[in-house]
C-alpha cells in the first residue's frame, strides 16, 4: 500500500532524513516512534508529499508521489491525515469542515457530503456538535472531528502525525479509543506517536527512528521484547518508566 524507498531529505545542508526505507501493507498498523528531531513527522509528511524530499521515491497504491505526472491533489484526497494541532478550519462550522473537501475534491453533492460527514461524526461520538465552530470544542473533541473529516473522504490509508501530543492528558484516551477502533476495523494506518500503550494494543509493526534514520523496523513483539539497538532500548526505558 505504502512503499518508502531510500528517501533522503535535506534542509539546506542539514540532513533530516537519511536513506529511509520501509513499507506499510494493506490493513497494517505501523507505529513510528523516536526522540524529537528524529525525523518521524517529516517522514510521514513525505508520504502524501506535504514535505518534498530530494532523493528516493514513495509509492502509494501503485502511484509514485515524485512522478511529475501524478495528480498530487487526487492522491492526497485518498490518504487521510490527522495533525498534531488538529488543523480544523476555524472559520467554518464542524459540518462545513466535514463536507468541504468532499464537495470540492470528490465532487459529491451537498446532501451526500453532509450525510457522509454526519455519519462519521456519529462514529467519533460527536453528532450533537455538528453546528458548532471548532473553537467551541475541547482539544480531544477537535481531534476526533479531524479524524471524522479525514474518514469522510473514504481514504485507503490514514496517516497520524502525533495526534495526541497537543492534548491534555484526560483527553488522550478518547482520541486513542477512536484510533484503536479504526485499527481493529482493518484500516491501513501509519502513526507517529509516543503512546506505547496504543502501539502494544494494535500495532503490527514498530519503526524506531533516530537522527533521520530508521534504526529499528520490527514486529511489535520483537520491538517490545528486546529491541536490537541500544538507542531504542534507551528510548523505551525512558518513556516506559514514568
Amino acid at each position, binding site marked *: 500500500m505504502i512503499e518508502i524507498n531510500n528517501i533522503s531529505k535535506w534542509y539546506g545542508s542539514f540532513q533530516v532524513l537519511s536513506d529511509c526505507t520501509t513499507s506499510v501493507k494493506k490493513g497494517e498498523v505501523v507505529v513510528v516512534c523516536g526522540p524529537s528531531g528524529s525525523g518521524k513527522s517529516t517522514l510521514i509528511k513525505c508520504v502524501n508529499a506535504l514535505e518534498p524530499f530530494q532523493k528516493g521515491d514513495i509509492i502509494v497504491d501503485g502511484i509514485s508521489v515524485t512522478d511529475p505526472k501524478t495528480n498530487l*491533489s487526487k492522491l*492526497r*484526497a485518498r490518504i487521510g491525515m490527522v495533525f498534531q*494541532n488538529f*488543523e*480544523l478550519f476555524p472559520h467554518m462550522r464542524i459540518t462545513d469542515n466535514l463536507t*468541504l473537501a468532499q464537495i470540492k475534491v470528490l465532487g459529491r453533492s451537498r446532501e451526500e457530503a453532509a450525510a457522509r460527514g454526519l455519519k462519521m461524526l456519529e462514529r467519533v461520538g460527536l453528532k450533537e456538535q455538528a453546528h458548532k465552530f471548532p473553537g467551541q470544542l475541547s482539544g480531544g473533541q477537535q481531534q476526533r472531528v479531524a479524524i471524522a473529516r479525514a474518514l469522510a473522504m473514504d481514504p485507503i490509508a490514514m496517516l497520524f502525525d502525533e495526534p495526541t501530543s497537543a492534548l491534555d492528558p484526560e483527553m488522550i484516551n478518547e482520541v486513542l479509543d477512536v484510533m484503536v477502533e479504526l485499527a481493529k476495523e482493518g484500516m491501513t494506518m501509519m502513526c507517529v506517536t509516543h503512546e506505547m500503550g496504543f502501539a502494544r494494543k494494535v500495532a503490527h509493526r514498530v519503526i524506531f527512528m533516530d537522527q533521520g534514520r530508521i534504526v529499528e523496523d520490527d514486529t511489535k513483539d520483537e520491538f517490545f521484547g528486546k529491541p536490537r539497538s541500544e538507542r531504542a532500548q534507551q528510548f523505551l526505558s525512558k518513556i516506559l518508566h514514568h
Partner: protein
Amino acid sequence: MIGDLDFEVIGRSLPYLLRGLQYTVQLTVVAALGGTFFGTLLAMARLSSFRPVSLTAAGYVNLMRSVPLLLVIFWFYFLAPVIVQSVMGWERPPQIGAERSAYITFIMFEAAYFCEIMRAGIQSISKGQVGAAFALGLNYWQAMKLVILPQAFRNMLPVLLTQTIVLFQDVSLVSLLNVTDFVGASVKIAQRDSRVVEMYAFVAVVYFILCYSLSTLVKQLQRRIAIIH
C-alpha cells in the same frame, strides 16, 4: 475678515458639496475594493515560490510605496496617456478624463498598500492550515480561496479598514486635477464666494467627524475579533 463670518454659505451650496462628498465616498469605496482585490493577487504573487513572479510583484509594490501619491496621480493623468499614445502609435493621446484617471490611479496605488496588509494576513495563517487543506486534496487556488484567504481577511479586517480611512483622506488630492470631490467642491465655493475660512473649517469638521467615528468603529470591531479568535 474673521469677525465677518457667514456660515450660511454652507447651506446655500450644500447640494453641490454633497455631490462632491458622494464622489469622494465612491472613489474611496471603489479604490478600497479594487485595491483589496488586486492587492490580494499581488500578495499571492509576492509569496510565490516562482522567483520571476515574486520579484515582479515586489518591484511593483516597492515602486508604488516609494513614490509620493501626488506624483503617481500626476503620472497617470498627465504622462500615462502620452505614453499609451506613443506605444500604440495613435495620433492623439486617449481621453481618459480626470475622474476616470483618478479611479485607475487609486486602485493601482492602493493595491500596493493592501498587498502588504494581505501578505501579512496570509503569513499569519499557520503552515498547518495550509497542510491540512492540501492533505484533504484541495489544490493551491482552492486552499487559498476556501481556507487561507477567508481567515487572512478576518485577521486583517481592522487594518484594511484603517487603511481605507487613510485612503478616504488621500482621495482629496484629486482636487488638484480639478476634480470636484468634497475638497474640490468646497475650494470652488470658497473661491467663488470668498468664503475660505468658513468652507475650509466646514470641510475639516466633516472629515474629522467621519474619520473619527469610523476609526472608533474599527477599534470596536478589533476588540470583537480579538475575543472570537
